[in-house]
C-alpha cells in the first residue's frame, strides 16, 4: 500500500488542505435491511445487531476516538413516516431506530453514515 503525503489537494483551480478531505469523509457507512436482516453495502462496519422491531446497532471495525459524533441516517420507505434516526452514537457503535407516524417501531431499510475522528 502506498501513501501520498501532501498538504493540499487541487483540481488546478481550487486548492484545499487535505485535512478538509480527511475530516469531511464518512468514517463508516452502511445500507441495512431490517426485514431480512442483511447488510447490502458498507464500509468499516463489522456487524449490525438486530435488537428488535425497528431497532438495531451498527458496530464499527475501526472505532472513533470519542462519542456523539454526527451520524446522519435516511430511509426511503415512505414520506408518511416519522423516519429513521441514530442515537447513542458511541466510539465503537451507533444505535438506529425507525418509526412510523404512530410512533411505533417498524422494520425498514436504512442508510447510516458515521462521521468523526478515528481512534
Amino acid at each position, binding site marked *: 500500500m502506498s501513501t501520498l503525503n501532501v498538504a493540499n489537494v487541487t483540481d488546478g483551480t481550487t486548492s484545499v488542505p487535505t485535512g478538509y478531505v480527511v475530516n469531511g469523509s464518512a468514517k463508516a457507512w452502511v445500507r441495512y435491511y431490517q426485514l431480512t436482516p*442483511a447488510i447490502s453495502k458498507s464500509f468499516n462496519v463489522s*456487524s449490525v445487531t438486530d435488537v*428488535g*422491531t425497528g431497532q438495531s446497532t451498527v458496530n464499527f*471495525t*475501526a472505532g472513533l476516538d470519542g462519542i456523539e459524533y454526527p451520524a446522519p441516517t435516511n430511509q426511503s420507505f415512505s414520506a408518511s413516516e416519522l423516519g429513521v434516526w441514530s442515537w447513542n452514537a458511541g466510539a465503537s457503535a451507533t444505535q438506529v431506530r425507525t418509526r412510523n407516524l404512530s410512533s411505533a417501531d417498524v*422494520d425498514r431499510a436504512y442508510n447510516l453514515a458515521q462521521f468523526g475522528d478515528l481512534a
Partner: protein
Amino acid sequence: MIAHLWDRLADAKARLDPVQSKYRVLFENPAEPEAPAAVLVPDPNFMAAALAGNVLPPIDTYIRDQSVPDGQPKEHPYAEPVGAMTEEEAIEYLVMKDISPSIWRDYNGNRTIMKIVPVELIPSDRSFRNAWKINQAEQEIAA
C-alpha cells in the same frame, strides 16, 4: 510501519469481494430478561477481510481498548494484523468484538443465552419479532 486499520479496510474493500456469512448469532442479555433475543448480522466486507487475513487486529486489542477512556490512544488501529481465519473463527471473533463479555464470557446461569446458527434458522416472519427468545429445548449449537 503498520497502516491504520481504517486504511487497511479501504484497501481490502477495493480488492476483495464481499462474503455473505452463512451464520447469524442469536443472543439474549441476562441483564434485560424481558428484552427479545438479538441477532448479530456479520458484515460482508468484514467477513472478506477476516477470511483473507492481514487486515484485522488481534481480538484482544479490542477487548483491552474497551477500558481505554475516550480521547486516549487505542491499541487496535495500529496493532499487527492477524492472519486468515476460517468463517467459524471469524464469527467467534465477531462475538468477542461486538457482543458484551457479560454474555459470552461472564454468564454462568442455566439458560442458553447465545447460539451461532445457520442463517436459515432465523425466522423470516417478523410479526412477533419482539417476542423472540432462544429455544431452550434445543441445546445444540449449530456449527
